[in-house]
Structures are given as C-alpha cells and as structure tokens.
C-alpha cells in the first residue's frame, strides 16, 4: 500500500474525532429528564388521565398536536374524542396547558435535554409560572 503511514494516521485522527463526544461524555452522570405532572389541576383529578394513554402521549404528542392544529385551523373542528370517549377542546393554550401549567418542568425539561426547539411559544402564550 502506498502512503500507508499517512492513510493510517488520517484514519486514526478521523476515528478519534468521531468518537470524541462518546469518549468525552463517558463517566459523566447523565440525568434523564423526568417531566413533572404535579400541577394543582392534575393533583385534583380523580383519574390522572391525559387525552390518550401515557405511552402514546410520550411517543406521539408532536404528531397529535400537528393534527389538532390542522383540524382546528383548517377544518374548524374543535372537539377531540380522546381515550375512553371523553371529549376535549383541541387547544394547546387552553386545554394542554390548563393541566400542564408547569411548562418549564414539563415541556422544557425533555425538550432541552433532547435539544429540540419547537416554536410553539413564539405565538402561543405560555402559562404564568411561579418563579421558584
């Protein structure tokens, strides 16, 4: 092989750069975010149930919100029949955030961890939170 020294050194440098983030973060204690649901409204609920089961909401809430938006804005249909046939007004500001009034501990904890920046709050007004 011609230039084997250069090629092998180059490969080693490449592998070192690519694996750097993994090596660097090894050993650091990564705390998984735990979105909190202990808001006053949720505390008072007899059955703590979102519009769909928890596993579904965790995986699909972004798709669900997209579909809610299209349904409300474009088709004018505002009622969502959720888990167990219960009806909800499809509204991020008035329905979701009514229960989940702790945006910082609920939405932001995961979104910041995953470094996703949804632009919901550019327009939608976040609930007022006690700055503690």
């Amino acid at each position: 092989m011609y230039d084997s020294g250069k090629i092998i050194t180059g490969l080693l440098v490449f592998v070192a750069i690519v694996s750097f983030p993994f090596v660097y973060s090894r050993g650091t204690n990564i705390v998984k975010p735990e979105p909190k649901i202990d808001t006053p409204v949720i505390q008072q609920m007899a059955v703590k149930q979102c519009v769909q089961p928890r596993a579904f909401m965790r995986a699909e809430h972004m798709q669900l919100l997209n579909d809610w938006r299209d349904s409300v804005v474009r088709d004018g249909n505002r009622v969502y029949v959720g888990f167990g046939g219960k009806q909800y007004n499809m509204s991020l500001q008035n329905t979701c955030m009514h229960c989940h009034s702790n945006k910082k501990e609920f939405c932001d904890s995961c979104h910041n961890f995953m470094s996703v920046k949804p632009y919901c709050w550019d327009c939608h007004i976040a609930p007022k939170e006690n700055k503690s």
Partner: protein
Amino acid sequence: MSMDRRQFLKITGVSTILGIGAVAGVNGLSRSPVEASQVEPSPDALKAKRWGFVIDMSKFRTDDDFTRVRHACHSIHNVPDIDNPKVEIKWIWKDTYEHTFPGQESKYMAEEMKDKPFMVLCNHCDNPPCVRVCPTKATFKRSDGIVMMDMHRCIGCRFCMAACPFGARSFNFGDPRPFIKEPNPEFPTRTKGVVEKCTFCYERLAKGLNPACVDASQGGIVFGDLEDPKSEVRRLISKHYTIRRKLELGTEPSVYYIIGGNENA
C-alpha cells in the same frame, strides 16, 4: 447466467409484489394517531353558509364609538398597539370616506359625509385575491365564507398584502409581544414575520359567541348569514340602501355599509 423471458417476468413480478407489500406495511405502521372519527365540530358553534357584516354608520357618531369597537377586537386578539403608521398592526380601524369608497366622492357632496370616518376591516370577500396569491395556502377561505389565516403556514412573503385592495392586512416587522399591554391568555399572539388580519372571530363563533366588534358596537355592526334570506343582515340589506367597498374590482366583499344619516335598523 442466462435467463429466458419467462424467468425474467417471474422475477420482476415477484419483486414488484414484495416492494408494494413493504411500502404498504411501512405506511400501515406509521399511521396518523388522530383518526378522522376522533374529531368533531363544536356543538355550540354558530353556523352559516356565508358570514357577513352590515355596518350601520349612523351608530358611529363619536370617537368613542370607534375606539370602543377597536379596543374590543384588538384586546381580545392580542393585536399590538404600535404607534408608527409604517409598521402598525390593525384588524379594525377607521378611515376617511375617500379612502373607504374611492371614486364615489362627488364634488359637491355633503361635508359631514365627506369628513365622516368609516369603520373598516377585512371584507371577507367571496372572491378573495389574497387567497389566490398565497403561495403556501396560509390564507384560505373556509366553507362558511370566512377568509382565514393559518399563522403556522405563513412565510411572510406579503403577496396577500399586495393583493388585498382594502389594506386589511398588516405585517409583523418585529416581535409584536412588547407592544401588547395586557395579553389575553386564551388567544395566541403572532410572531415576527407573519401577516395578520381580522378572522371574523372564528374562535368566538366556535363557542357560540358573537364577534367581538358586534358585541361592542351597540348595534352599529350586525353579523349574520348572507345566504339565509331570513337573517338579520339580509333584512337590513333589503330594507336600506347599502354600499360595499370597491365593487368594481369584483372581489364581492361581505361587509355592507348603511350610510344614511337617519336612525336605521
């Protein structure tokens, strides 16, 4: 490897079926979580075939009549109060006769009419030019005649502002939030870079409420179904002489003005 025609057709046939099956399988797995059967219109919603306004100018006498209506609309919808006319945002506002009905001013017309301010807003045209030019379908006409904005889709190209002959649209050149004194927490604001306008209070109609301007106008603004011959708006239009803005452009506005000086309605 040599292959005869028969073998070739067999292989292509089987691989086509496998391919289609795989696509169908993947699509089936990633189905939308919201089924069509899961959404319904709100039961209390007010419905019409074509919503329209009749504005009785005899009920707008003082400055307070205008500001009251304007404030009702703008405070509910988080419309920023920007003093600079170059970047101001307005959903409903007052304008002069010659700006409202250009070409209809006559040389010797009554001074009081010529100087009278008029309440103007989006006309929710039957043939809306703003909808035709929107490249993203961010603005669209609902089946009940309301010309709506989908802020999520607006890319801020401002074609609609150029197309609208009534100046009913405003552009957010900057973040509107610092200019909103008391935000209504039940309604979103807008963000930098989107166009906004009157939405016929679609969110209030869905709850069974009247548009905010109608409630605040003390009878000066009446709303109803223009396609229902028995509606209040149709009764007013048939009883009084009404004019609409810039009819010659063919946009068919849904806002009618009663401009007679007497007590109407």
